[in-house]
């Protein structure tokens, strides 16, 4: 769990630090946080960058946890209740939503952590870098650099359903994914909603909001449970979170995706996000950032090759 010797006596706990098997990427883990990090540059610069990222990460979780009650409470749209740097990023990311929907700063925790560590990582001489926090990714993309991002709708099928090339010209520096199958609870039924946004924390907050909007509120087959029945201290309290989604008809999938897409388009119009891809049971819709080419639910590309079984289909 921990290293034999903490790097510095002033730090209460030491995260787990390791290079991945490829010898290039750095893995940092502490409690529920897993970061996969890559920086490109001269060897000694990368080494120094990884050391700086590790230093920033050490104690980060402790600082967050010191302000946990405030981070778990519904966010105010105009008052920041927290003082830590990561906690402030979280609040800043969710504040624009706070007047419209229920949201807590926790909705942006993964993206904010990625962003904060990325900031420490980017030393002079680093030409490109990212911090991937469990699918929520902060990007460093200076002039001349680009990233190709591939989109996978389900982990059990190794297929890329769309790609987007992000360059310096693009405003996108953050990518985040949210869905009911993920580690965090969702109020919606999206298998995944992936958002491209100017920052990782913004992307994270928006992914949460859009994923919550992909829903069929009156569908009787969707299993929902009070969040605090599952995790007593969940920031979602007694709100119903999705635990199982039955096989949906093409019409139901389209309805749910359209509901989410409307929210995503609204966020696009207001400049809060740059692109979105929404997935429900094998169907994908997208908007912005080159993701428009992902078909709409009514598109021919989504007509199943085989007819839907009459009954009982639930997964896979």
């Amino acid at each position, binding site marked *: 769990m921990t290293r034999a010797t903490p790097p510095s006596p002033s730090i209460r706990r030491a995260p787990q630090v390791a290079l991945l098997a490829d010898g290039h990427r750095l893995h940092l883990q502490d409690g529920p946080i897993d970061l996969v990090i890559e920086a490109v540059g001269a060897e000694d610069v990368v080494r120094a960058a990884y050391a700086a990222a590790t230093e920033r990460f050490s104690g980060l979780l402790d600082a967050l946890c010191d302000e946990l009650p405030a981070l778990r409470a519904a966010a105010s749209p105009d008052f920041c209740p927290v003082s830590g740097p990561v906690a402030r990023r979280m609040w800043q990311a969710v504040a624009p939503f706070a007047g419209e929907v229920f949201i807590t700063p926790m909705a942006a925790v993964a993206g904010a952590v990625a962003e904060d560590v990325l900031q420490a990582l980017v030393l002079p001489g680093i030409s490109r870098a990212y911090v991937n926090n469990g699918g929520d990714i902060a990007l460093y993309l200076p002039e001349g650099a680009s990233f190709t991002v591939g989109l996978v709708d389900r982990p059990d099928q*190794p297929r890329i359903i769309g790609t987007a090339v992000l360059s310096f010209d693009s405003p996108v520096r953050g990518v985040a994914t949210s869905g009911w199958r993920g580690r965090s609870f969702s109020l919606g039924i999206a298998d995944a909603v992936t958002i491209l946004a100017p920052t990782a924390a913004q992307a994270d907050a928006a992914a949460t909001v859009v994923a919550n909007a992909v829903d069929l509120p009156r569908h009787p087959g969707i299993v929902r449970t009070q969040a605090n029945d599952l995790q007593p201290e969940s920031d979602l309290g007694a709100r119903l979170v999705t635990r199982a989604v039955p096989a949906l008809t093409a019409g139901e999938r389209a309805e749910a995706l359209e509901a989410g897409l409307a929210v995503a388009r609204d966020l696009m119009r207001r400049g809060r996000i740059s692109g979105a891809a929404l997935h429900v049971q094998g169907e994908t819709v997208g908007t912005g950032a080159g993701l428009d080419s992902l078909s709409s639910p009514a598109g021919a590309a989504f007509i199943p090759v085989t007819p839907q079984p009459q009954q009982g289909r639930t997964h896979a």
Partner: protein
Amino acid sequence: MLDETVAAPRPAADEKIRCDACPVMCYIKPGMTGACDRYANDAGELVRVDPHVVLDRTLAQGGNIVPFNRGGDWDGKIVSSPETFVTAIGAGTTYPDYKPAPFIVSSEVDGVDMVTVVTEGIFSYCGVKVKIDTDRYLGPEQAVVRAAGEPIGHVTTSEYGSQMLSLGGVHHLTGGGKKEGRVTCDALLNLCNGKAVELVIDGGATVVVQAGKAPIVNGVPEERMRVGCGSATIGMFAKQWLGKADEVVVVDDHITGVLSEHQAGKLLDIPDTGIKMKGRRSTPGRYFQVAEPGTGWGGTNISDPLSIIGPFDAKVAKAGTRLFFISTTGEHSAYYELDETLAPVEKPMPEDLMASTERVKENCEPALCTVLFMAGAGGSLRSGVTENPVRLTRSVKDALTYVTSGGAPVYVYPGGGITFMVDVTRLPENAFGYVPTPALVAPIEFTLKLSDYEALGGHMSEVRPLASIPQGDGTRPVAPISDNPWPLAPQTAKRSHG
């Protein structure tokens, strides 16, 4: 340090526990996990759940299985390729590389460096095919197979020396009553995880099935498969019986053999004995339906072998004729001699016939239950949205993408989708789980080579489940099952791959 405190979680009055594995200090309800999905409350005890199962090739050489242990300091060693293959067992969504639907960030200009390929699939289209090595009558074809009174499958075809059952499937899991689904899921889960399950067949037997173990039919453990049908047994052993008995009857529910009438007996110049068999004669010395199917001699319902013969033909039979009855497994045998009235009288079996009985037994293979998990992972592949959907599907069919289940090789059905079968005994222990849908959760891994992916269109630079699993924390290294091909050595893997 953290590790000392982790070992002693503070129990709370309502059995929720405070996890102090990290400063989040989750308050975890019984049966639930904390925010990290890594630690859970198991009846008031803090446990690390669903440990990643790592097949560590090096363990095979040492022969030791390193027990899962989250205590102790991390020594900085990380699991390295290619000696380690990370299975999907317990993968869940814990690690970033395995989280559903990640965007993938490239480390190359045109490539992509993170692809989620290790997962636990949720299968409601799944079941098990059970092969039960027995000649005993388990029940009529198409009969309903029940567990705890609920229909969970049916009897399908008989195979040579075995009876096949088809259990589970989407209709029992989700198409019937709620209880039916739950009981079916439970039975499948237990069978897949190598546990014994009692099955009751309508109009047939009660059989206890456990993968890799002998079936127990109506309370009696089956020991052997038959050496052959009754006729084949005559052919195999005729020469060895010559001179030791005047007549041999091999009792079999399928074809009962009679030595003196059989071609093998004719070739040895064995004279007629005047025996009169019941049942329907097929060809000389081969009889169908000498009795009803059952759990007695040779898969028939008889316990007295004389019940399948009529009175001896007085014109042919001689007093003193030696009669040897044996079943196709050698489990039952009896010896008679004809008295002055040409009636068979049981006598102590001569030693050489006892030895012959042993020989028949020796040539029977041990009777086992085989459980093959079968599931379809085709749904998500079906609606092609990729640039090259056909090529992607084909990559699995062409074994460019190697599919394993818990590191075990699978047979992938030809045709559409990814429908596969795997021998559950080739997976590590407790590899299967369930969700209350109800559906089974089974590990499935897709391993792709870079060159194969480039051939597909070059979106991914790497699709392999080798990653950031530190040893000691939440990993359960297990020695690979020796018969399984190494998943990351495709040249050996593909050979056993359908």
